[in-house]
C-alpha cells in the first residue's frame, strides 16, 4: 500500500461523493420540503445522461450538448411534476412509492424505445482527455478532476443560494414547517415546482457529467438511487449541507473501504481469509456507516430543525 495509491483512491472517493451530492441535493429537498418520496429521482439522472448523449451527437460538441441538456432536463422535470407528482403530494407515502416506481419502469422502457437497449457512449471533449501527473507517479484522468471541480462549484453555489437568498430562505422554511409557510402567504405549490425542477436539473447535470466515463444505458440510475437515499438519511433529510457532508463521506468510505479494506484486514488475519472477508465486507461498509450514524443521531448528521 503506497501513499500514491491512497491519494488516487481519495480522489476517486471524492469524485463519487461529488456525484452523489449532485443527485442527493435535489432528492433531500424534495423529501424534506415536500415530504415526498421520489423513487424516480434516479431516472432524472439517466435522462440527463441520455439528453447529453443525444445533444452531443447532434452538435458534435460536449459543452453545447451540456448547455442544451440542462434546460431540457429542467423542462422534463417540470413536465413530470405537472403531469404526475403534483397529484401525489397529499397522498400517503405508499402511493408515492408505487407511482414513482411505476415511472421508473415506464421511463426505463421509454428510453429503450427511443434510443435502443444498447449502451450509448459520449466522447470526452478533446481538450480534457488524457491524464495529468499530479505528483510523481500519480496520474489522474483530467475528466474526473473536472467532475470533482464542477461538483464542488455547484455545491458552493447551492450553499449560497440556500443560505443567502430569499428563495433559499423559503425553501429552508418549507423544510421546517410547510403549512406555516403557506399560511404566511407564500405560494407553496410554486415553491415546490421550482424545487422539484431544480432538483431534476441537478440530477440531470450529474448524469451528463458522468456520461463520458460511464456508459449511458437504461436503468443506469437505479443503482445510484439506493446510495443516494443512504446519503440523505445519513445527512439528515432536508439538509443540503448534510447531504454534502454525507455524500463525500459515503464516497470516501465506499472507495477506500473497497481498496484498502482487504489490505488492512491482512494485518490481523491470514491473507486468504482477509481477502475473502474484505470482499464480503466492502459493499456493506456504507450501510454499517449508516447504521452507526443513525444509532448516535437518529435524525441524521444535520437534521432540518422541526
Amino acid at each position, binding site marked *: 500500500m503506497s501513499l500514491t495509491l491512497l491519494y488516487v483512491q481519495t480522489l476517486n472517493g471524492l469524485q463519487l461523493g461529488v456525484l452523489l451530492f449532485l443527485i442527493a441535493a435535489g432528492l433531500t429537498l424534495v423529501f424534506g420540503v415536500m415530504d415526498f418520496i421520489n423513487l424516480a429521482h434516479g431516472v432524472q439522472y439517466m435522462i440527463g445522461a441520455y439528453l447529453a448523449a443525444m445533444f452531443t451527437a447532434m452538435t458534435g460538441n460536449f459543452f453545447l450538448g451540456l448547455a442544451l441538456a440542462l434546460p431540457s432536463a429542467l423542462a422534463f422535470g417540470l413536465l413530470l411534476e405537472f403531469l404526475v407528482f403534483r397529484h401525489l403530494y397529499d397522498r400517503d407515502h405508499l402511493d408515492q412509492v408505487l407511482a414513482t416506481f411505476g415511472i421508473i419502469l415506464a421511463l426505463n422502457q421509454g428510453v429503450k424505445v427511443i434510443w435502443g437497449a444498447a449502451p450509448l457512449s459520449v466522447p470526452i471533449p478533446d481538450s480534457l482527455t488524457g491524464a495529468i501527473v499530479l505528483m510523481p507517479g500519480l496520474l489522474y*484522468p483530467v475528466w474526473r478532476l473536472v467532475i470533482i471541480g464542477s461538483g464542488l462549484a455547484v455545491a458552493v453555489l447551492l450553499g449560497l443560494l440556500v443560505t443567502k437568498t430569499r428563495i433559499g430562505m423559503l425553501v429552508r422554511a418549507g423544510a421546517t414547517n410547510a403549512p406555516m409557510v403557506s399560511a404566511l402567504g407564500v405560494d407553496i405549490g410554486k415553491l415546490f415546482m421550482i424545487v422539484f425542477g431544480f432538483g431534476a436539473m441537478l440530477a440531470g447535470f450529474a448524469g451528463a457529467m458522468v456520461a463520458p*466515463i460511464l456508459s449511458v*444505458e437504461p436503468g443506469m440510475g437505479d443503482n445510484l438511487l439506493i446510495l443516494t437515499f443512504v446519503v440523505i438519511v445519513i445527512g439528515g433529510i432536508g439538509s443540503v449541507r448534510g447531504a454534502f457532508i454525507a455524500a463525500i463521506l459515503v464516497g470516501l468510505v465506499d472507495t477506500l473501504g473497497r481498496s484498502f479494506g482487504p489490505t488492512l484486514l491482512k494485518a490481523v488475519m491470514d491473507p486468504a481469509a482477509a481477502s475473502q472477508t474484505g470482499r464480503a465486507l466492502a459493499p456493506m461498509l456504507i450501510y454499517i456507516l449508516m447504521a452507526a450514524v443513525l444509532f448516535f443521531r437518529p435524525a441524521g448528521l444535520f437534521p432540518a430543525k422541526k
Partner: protein
Amino acid sequence: MVAKFTAHSKWKLPLLALALSSGVSGAALAQEKLKIGIMVTLSGPSAVLGGQARDGFNLAVKTLGGKLGGVDAEVIVVDDELKPDVAVGKVKGLLERDGVQFVVGPIFSNVLQAIHKPVTESNAFLISPNAGTSNFAGAQCHPNFYVTSYQNDQNHEVLGKYAQDKGFKKLFLMAPNYQAGKDSLAGVKRHFKGEVVSEVYTPLGQLDFSAELAQIAAAKPDAVFAFMPGGMGVNLVRQYRQAGLANIPFLSAFTVDESTLPAQKEAAVGFFGGANWAPDMKNPQTEAFVKAYEAAYNSVPGTYAMQAYDAALLIDAAVKSAGGKVSDKNAVRAGLKKADFKSLRGNFKMGINGYPIQDFYLVQAVARPDGKFATSLRDKVFSNYVDVYAKDCKPAN
C-alpha cells in the same frame, strides 16, 4: 364486462375449428410442420445479446427459404426477461400451447438451469445458442439437450492459456462477484501457472472502476484479465483507456465483443478476448453470413448471432437426416448428434455430451475501414478442444 365477453366469444369459433381440425388432421397430415420457439433475453440492459441471437436465427431461416430440413418452419420468439421464473412459465406456454418441437435458447446460464428440465422432459429438443453450464456438460448431460456455443469455462481458459504461453509472470484478475465470475477466474487459473497478483471481485452491476484501476496501476501486472459482460465491460474498457493503463495488455472474455464494441469504439481497439469465431474468419460461409447480416440489421454480428445461425443449421441438418419426419424423435436426435452441417466456424463436431468440439482463438478488437468496430482472429489457442466435464457424461442412449 361486456367487452370482455365479446372478445371471448369472438375466439370461440376459431378455437372450436382448431380443436376439430387438429383432432382430424393429426393422422391425415402428410407434410409435417416444424415449430421452433426462440427464447432469448430481449429486455433489460442485455437485450442486445438476445437480439443478435434472434436475428442470427431468423437470417438462417430466411437464407434457407423459410424451411429447415425441407419442412416449413414456423418461428415463435419470446422474451425470457432474464428472469428464470418468467422463463419457465413462457417455455411451458411454448411447449404446451404452441406445441414446439425445438426450443432455441437461452442466452444466460441461470435461465438455462430453469428451462432445461421442462423442455428436455417434455421430449422436445433444447438447443442452446449461448449458455453452456458445467452441470449439463457433465453428469447431468441429456440426450435432448445440444449446445451450439461452447462450455462456459472455455472462453476464459483461452486467455489463461494465452497468458501462460506468452510467458506473463504476473496477472491481475477481476470479475463480478457472482457464480459466473468465480467460474471465470477458475477457468483462467486452470491454465495460468504464474503469479496472480490480485483477484478482485466487484459487485455485480458496478459501473465505476476507478478504485480497481488505481489498484492495477499500483500492482503493475504483466497483463490484466477481466470478465465484465455488458454495460460493465463498456465502462471498464473506456475507463481503463482513460486511466492511461492501455500499455498493460487487456485480456478479457465476454467484455470486448460485437455487443459492447459499438459503445466502446476506439477505447477497445487492441484489447484481447477469447472466442470460437470472429466475423473476419476466412471461409466462404462466414463471408456470406456477415455480409447478409450487416445488410439486414446494420450491425456487426458477434458470436451470439453466429451461434444462433449455426443452431438453425443444426436443426436443418437434423431434420433433413430424419427425412423431414420431425415427429421421429430418435431419427432427429441421431441427426443432432451427427451435426452434419457447414458451421460458420469451419471446424465443428458435436461431442458426446451435446457440447461442441471446436477450435478457440485469441481475438483482438479492431477498427474496420468502414468505421465499424469488430473482433479479429489472432492466434489459435486450442484445437478440437473438448470441455473438461465431458468425461463425466454417461449418455443414456
